């Protein structure tokens, strides 16, 4: 079965959702002292380290890979009609 190309609306909503998740996490984590857990973890640091790791992975993905990923999705969407016709 051929997979349908995502609509422009879906592409933009997914990009906006990533921005929103990142922004909300940023605001939540602004209240925690994370470097101390990273550099000198104590007995209570496991949860903070896990949250930090998830946040930093999301942030690396968001800043490093999302711009290219979004551009590619928009390009594929913009050229999908011609590609579908051919």
């Amino acid at each position, binding site marked *: 079965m051929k997979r349908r190309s995502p609509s422009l609306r879906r592409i933009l909503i997914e990009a906006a959702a990533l921005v929103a998740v990142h922004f909300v996490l*940023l605001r939540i984590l602004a209240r925690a002292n994370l*470097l101390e857990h*990273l550099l*000198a973890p104590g007995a209570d640091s496991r949860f903070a380290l896990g949250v*930090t790791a998830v946040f*930093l992975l999301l942030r690396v993905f968001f*800043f490093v890979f999302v*711009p290219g990923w979004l551009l*590619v999705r928009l390009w594929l969407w913009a050229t999908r009609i011609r590609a579908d016709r*051919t």
Partner: protein
Amino acid sequence: MFSLPWNVARWVRWSVAVLLFVGATAFVPRWWCGREGARYYTGDPATVAALARHVAGTMARGVSDSDFTSDSARFRGEWQFGTHQMAALGLLQTCRQHPELRDELRPGIENAIAGLLSPAVRAFDAQSWGEDALDSLDGPYGHAAYLGYLNLVLALDRATFADSRHTALNDRISAALARRFGAASHQIIETYPGEAYPVDNASGLASLLLHQRVTGIDHAAALTGTLECFRTRWRDPRTGLLQQALDHRSGQAMDRGRASGTALAAYFLALADPELARPFFRSLRTHLAGSILGFGYVDEYAAGERGGGDIDSGPLIFGMSPSGTGFTIATSRVFGDRALYVSLARTAYLMGAPVAQGDERFFITGGPLGNAILLAMFTAQPVVR
């Protein structure tokens, strides 16, 4: 209208997609994440002031032992001390570069110095030695970290403010440190009983060089041997990095040259004598600095050497040193290496996650210590009178 065969069109479409992804990944993140670093490099007043306000605010609210998470009381004490020291240095450097901020930031500097002098912050050193560093200035024991780091702040305060309230204490500590350097059998003063670290001695040495320049009091005779050690004996023969730890009885190296110690020592020395610090910066640049997609990093160990992370370096990520990376920002600014500075600042932006809150800006993964360190590193500059 001209149209391509479907398989050619598909090939072109996906080739362009790959090029777009590679191009965007290569250029967009380095541009976006490097904007703030470029502003710190030039000392943009609004950018620097926002971080400085946050650090000054932290000093006003106070930093206690409970702000830190290590299970070791000594490390918690060291970090509390380090937070006050870096905050004071960062705020003083900001005042030197932006005199218009002096009135606003000086209370933060006084709060940081008051914190450094408080019994609670002195306790980590006093517990290790069994005596208080300031009450035993006439005694023989080292207290290299506490006295050296504190005295560097006091000397910089004196160099910055003609009406510094700490000149008498600066004179007393300088006299004690000079006497201890002069008497040290291997030119190194102990940090704790039986423990000697060149990086801690770098802060004491820098404080005396600064004190000498500001007051005209000559410490040359006491410092000649230690200066020579920083130029030759304490440098790794292959890489030129500063040895991380020494046996104070024999003067022999107990650890290799590493990024965390070298970069922090280079920052301290560059404040007082950039030419003394320059070889360390060259070694960091040549042997340890690298970049991925424009995001700079500094390895903890030179190529061909293996080792783990510790309290000095932080956890190593594929050999990259969080502390070494952060501390090298300072000397890249002092020595005008804009490309390295901005690349390291990109990494700080990516991993530090800065946010604005009112007229302040801070790094959310930094906490009190990380933000104080970054202010000091971003605003590093030699003291020129």
